[in-house]
C-alpha cells in the first residue's frame, strides 16, 4: 500500500463536512462517480467514520476526498469548547480534541474537526439550502471556521422549491464565506463540477494548477464518455438495421403467422434496445437496476413506450423525410412482399437498395435466391430506428445531467423531441449499408471479426459514421439546453 500513501501525500485533500443529512455522501458519489460509495439514507448519522475516496487521474489520486460524519450537536459543542482554556479559537479546538468529550458525547463532531484541522487542505461545507437558518448551523460554521482551513460552501438542493438560497448566501457572507458554489448533488447543473474546482482554486492559489488539471481531466472524460455513448447507440442502430427475419411464402400469406414473425423481429429489436440501455447505464456508472431507484423520465414512461407504436412511427417517418412513412407503420419492412414482383419497392423503403448497390451483388443475389425459394425477409423499419436513436440520446443526456446520489428527485431533461430531426435522420440513414449485412446482427460474428476480414472494417466504418451523426445530434441538444 506504499503507492497509495504516496499518492495521498501528493493529492489535494478535501474534507466534505456539513450537518447530518445535508448530502455529503451524495455529493461525493457524484464527484467521484461511484454510486456505491458509502451509505446514503434518510436516517441521521449514517456515516460515522472518516472515509477517504480518491478522484484518480491517469491512475494517480489527484484529489482525495474525506467523507466525514455529520455535525449533529454543534450548539452544545460550541458551548463546551468556549469553556476550555486557550488563547485562540484553534487552541481551544485542539484542547477539545485532546479532552475526554472528544471520545465521548462529541466523538462524531471530533472526527470532523480532526479531519478539518490535520487531514485536509480545504473543505467543502455541504449545505441543505431547504433548511431554515438556525443557530445550530451558525454554530457549525463557527466551529469549522475555528479550524482555520479554507471553506467552500456547496449549496445543495438549490433546485428544490423550498430552497432558501438567498438567506443562506447572506448568512455565509456574514460568516466571511463569499465564494459559494451551487451544486445539486442529485441533479448537478451543467458545468457545476467545473465551477466547483475553479472556485476552489481561488481559495487555494497554490494548488490552482493541480485543480486546472482536474478540470481538464473531467472535460476529457466527459467527452470520452459521450463519444462512447454515441458508439453504443450506433452499435444498437446498426445491429437493428441488420436484423432480418426470414418468412416462408406460405407463412407470409397466413396473417396470424405473418404477425407472429413480425412480433418475433420486434422482440429481437426490443431485447437489443434493452441491452443498449443497460450498456449506457453502466457507462455512466449506474447499475442496471438503478433505473427503478433513480427515476429517469426517459426510462420511466418512455422505455415501456412501445418502439413500434404506430403514431410515434408516423411522426418519426415524417422527420426522416421522403415517403419513408409509406409502410403501414408497423415498424417492420418486408423486402419483397411489398411490391410482389417488384424488388424495388421494398428495397427502397428499407433503404436496402443503397446497401445492395454499395455491396455489389452478394446480398442482392441472396435476396433473389430467397425470392426464388419463396422466402420473404423482414427487417426493422427506419422510423423505428429513428425512435430508438431519439430515446437513447435522451437517456444519454439525462444520465449526463444526473448525479449519483440516490434518493434524488427525477431530472427534467430537454425532451427527446427537441433533438434536431436532421441530425437524427442522418444517423438513421447512415445505417443503410447494414441492411445488406444480416450477419452483423448475429453474435456469432465474433469469429468473422477476429480474422480481421474486410467486412468488419466495413462495419466499423458504418459505426463511425452513425456515431458521428449521433454526436452532432447530441451537440445540437447541448446548445439547445444552454
Amino acid at each position, binding site marked *: 500500500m506504499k503507492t497509495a500513501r504516496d499518492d495521498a501525500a501528493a493529492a489535494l485533500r478535501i474534507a466534505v463536512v456539513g450537518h447530518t443529512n445535508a448530502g455529503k455522501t451524495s455529493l461525493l458519489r457524484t464527484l467521484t462517480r461511484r454510486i456505491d460509495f458509502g451509505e446514503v439514507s434518510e436516517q441521521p448519522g449514517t456515516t460515522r467514520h472518516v472515509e477517504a*475516496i480518491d478522484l484518480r487521474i491517469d491512475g494517480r489520486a489527484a484529489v482525495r476526498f474525506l467523507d466525514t460524519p455529520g455535525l449533529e*450537536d454543534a450548539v452544545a459543542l460550541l458551548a463546551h469548547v468556549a469553556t476550555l482554556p486557550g488563547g485562540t479559537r484553534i487552541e481551544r479546538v485542539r484542547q477539545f480534541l485532546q479532552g475526554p468529550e472528544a471520545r465521548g458525547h462529541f466523538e462524531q463532531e471530533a472526527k470532523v474537526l480532526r*479531519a478539518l484541522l490535520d487531514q485536509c487542505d480545504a473543505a467543502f461545507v455541504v449545505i441543505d439550502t431547504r433548511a431554515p437558518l438556525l443557530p445550530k448551523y451558525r454554530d457549525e460554521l463557527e466551529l469549522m471556521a475555528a479550524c482555520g482551513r479554507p471553506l467552500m460552501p456547496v449549496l445543495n438542493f438549490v433546485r428544490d422549491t423550498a430552497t432558501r438560497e438567498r438567506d443562506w448566501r447572506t448568512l455565509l457572507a456574514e460568516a466571511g464565506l463569499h465564494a459559494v458554489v451551487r451544486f445539486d448533488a442529485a441533479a448537478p447543473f451543467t458545468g457545476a463540477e467545473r465551477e466547483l474546482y475553479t472556485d476552489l482554486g481561488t481559495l487555494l492559489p497554490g494548488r490552482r494548477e493541480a485543480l486546472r488539471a482536474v478540470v481538464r481531466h473531467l472535460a476529457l472524460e466527459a467527452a470520452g464518455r459521450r463519444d462512447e455513448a454515441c458508439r453504443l447507440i450506433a452499435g444498437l442502430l446498426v445491429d437493428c438495421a441488420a436484423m432480418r427475419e426470414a418468412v416462408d411464402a406460405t407463412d407470409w400469406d397466413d396473417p396470424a403467422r405473418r404477425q407472429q414473425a413480425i412480433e418475433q423481429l420486434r422482440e429481437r429489436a426490443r431485447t437489443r434496445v434493452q441491452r443498449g440501455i443497460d450498456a449506457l447505464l453502466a457507462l455512466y456508472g449506474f447499475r442496471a437496476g438503478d433505473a427503478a431507484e433513480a427515476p429517469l423520465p426517459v426510462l420511466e414512461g418512455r422505455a415501456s413506450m412501445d418502439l413500434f407504436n404506430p403514431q410515434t412511427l408516423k411522426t418519426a417517418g415524417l422527420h426522416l423525410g421522403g415517403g419513408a412513412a409509406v409502410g403501414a407503420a408497423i415498424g417492420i419492412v418486408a423486402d419483397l412482399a411489398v411490391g410482389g414482383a417488384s424488388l424495388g419497392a421494398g428495397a427502397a423503403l428499407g433503404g436496402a437498395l443503397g446497401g445492395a448497390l454499395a455491396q455489389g451483388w452478394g446480398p442482392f443475389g441472396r435476396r433473389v435466391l430467397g425470392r426464388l425459394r419463396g422466402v420473404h425477409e423482414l427487417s426493422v423499419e427506419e422510423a423505428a430506428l429513428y425512435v430508438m436513436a431519439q430515446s437513447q440520446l435522451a437517456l444519454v443526456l439525462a444520465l449526463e445531467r444526473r448525479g449519483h446520489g440516490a434518493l434524488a428527485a427525477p431530472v427534467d431533461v430537454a425532451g427527446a423531441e427537441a433533438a434536431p430531426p436532421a441530425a437524427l435522420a442522418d444517423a438513421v440513414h447512415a445505417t443503410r449499408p447494414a441492411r445488406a449485412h444480416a450477419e452483423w446482427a448475429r453474435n456469432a460474428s*465474433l469469429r468473422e471479426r477476429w480474422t480481421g476480414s474486410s467486412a468488419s472494417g466495413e462495419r466499423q466504418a458504418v459505426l463511425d459514421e452513425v456515431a458521428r451523426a449521433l454526436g452532432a445530434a447530441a451537440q445540437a441538444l447541448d446548445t439547445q439546453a444552454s
Partner: protein
Amino acid sequence: MIAPAPLLTEGIRALEAGGPLEDAQAAREAARAHDGDAQRIAHRAAVLAGRLGLADGLARARHLAPWVLLGLALAVTLAGLGLAGAVVDPSERRINVMAALVALLGAHLLSLAVWLAAVLWPGGRKGGSGSLLGRLWLSATARLALGRGAEAAAVAQGALALLRRARLLTWVAGLASHVVWALALLAALGALVFALSFRAYTLGWETTLLDPADFGRIVQALAVAPGWLGFAVPDAGRPTDRVLAQWLLGCVLVYGLLPRIALALLCALMWRLRAPRLQPDFALPYYRRLAARLEALAPATVLDPDTVAPARPAAYSHASGALADVTLLTGFELPPEQAWPPAPLPAGVEALAPIDGGQAQRQALLDALSQRRPRRLVLALDAGASPDRGTERLLREVLPLAGECRLWLLGGAPMTAQAERWQRWIEAIGLRDVASFTDASALHGAPVAQAAP
C-alpha cells in the same frame, strides 16, 4: 510467445465484446489484491480465464505452436518437392534450368514480395494484417488448442489485437512465413543436391517464343551473386551440365534460402525489440470503465474509524411528584414562516414561545419548565427537518421536567416518510414513550395511537 497476462486480458476483452461476463467474484478479488488499474484488470482477466478454461487452452497453445509451424513447413516442403520433381523429366533425365528455377523460386518470391510490400507500406491497414501463412499458423494453433468455440476466437483475436498494437503483427507473421519457407527451400535444396549428385542429368534451356541468346544473358546475370560465394559462372555459349547444376543450386541458395534465413533473423530481432510493447491499450473506454468499476469495489480507506459502542439506550425518567395540570406547547427549530401557534389550541393547552435551538433559548425553556412542572409537554418540530443529536439532547433535558412528552410534527401528513422517519429515530435512540403525531387533534387526550408502529 506473448506473455500470458496481456493475452488473457485482451482475450477476455474480445469475449466481452459480445456482452459482459459474470465477474462479481473475480472483480472483488482483483480490487482487493492490487492497487494499480493495470494489475487489477489483469488479475480479473486471469480469474475469469481460469474459470472459462482459457488459461489451460493458452498453455496448450504455447506448447502446440512450434509443432503447428513445423506441420505447415512440412506441407509447404512437400508442395515444394512436388514442384522440384515436376521440373525433372524422369524418363529423359533432362532438366530445363530456367523452368526449374521459376518452379522452385516463383511462389517463394511472390510471397516475399507481398510481405515486403506489407512492411514497406504499413499504412495500408492499421497495424498490418500479417501474411497468409502467419495467419494460418495463429488460427490453426488457436483452433487446435482451444477448439472451435468463441474462446479460441477470443484468444486469437486478443493475440492479433496485441500484435497490431505493438506493430508486431507483420513481423510475427513474417517470422512464421520465413521459417516455413526456409525449411521448405532447405528441403528442396537437399533433394536437388541429392539428385544431382548421384544421377546424370542433361541440363539446358529451351524456348520457342524467346531468343535463346537472351536466356544466356539472364543465366549469366543471375550467376553473379552466387559467383561471390564461389559458384561457377556459366559462359554464354554452351555451359557444361556440371556448371549449370552448380548454377541452379547457387540460385536456389542465394535467391531462396539465404534471404529467408536473413529475414527470419530480422523478424526475430524485431520481436525481441518490440516484445515489451505487447500491452493492452488501457486508454480504451472498455478498460477505463473496468478500471473505474474495480476502483469502486476496492475497500474504502477508513481514516478515522467509528469506535462508538452501539447505541446504548440511556436511562431517563419523567418528572414525578406534584405536577401542574397543564399541557405546555413549544416549538423547536421551526422555520421562520411557521405560524404560531400552528393551530387553534383547545382549552388546557398553553403555548410558550418557540425556541430556535440556540443555547440561550434552550436554557430559557428549561428554566420555564422546571418552574411550571407541566403534566404534559408538546414539542412542535418541523417534520421535514432531519433528526439529530441536538434534538435528542433537548428531549433528554426536558423529559425529567414534564410528566409526559409528545412531538408534534408540523407539515407532515400522518404516516408519511418524514413522520415515519422521526418515529423510527425516536425508537432508535431509546425514547420509546415519547409519542409523535401530526394532527392537531392529538394535542390533548389519551396517549396517541399513532405512536404505535
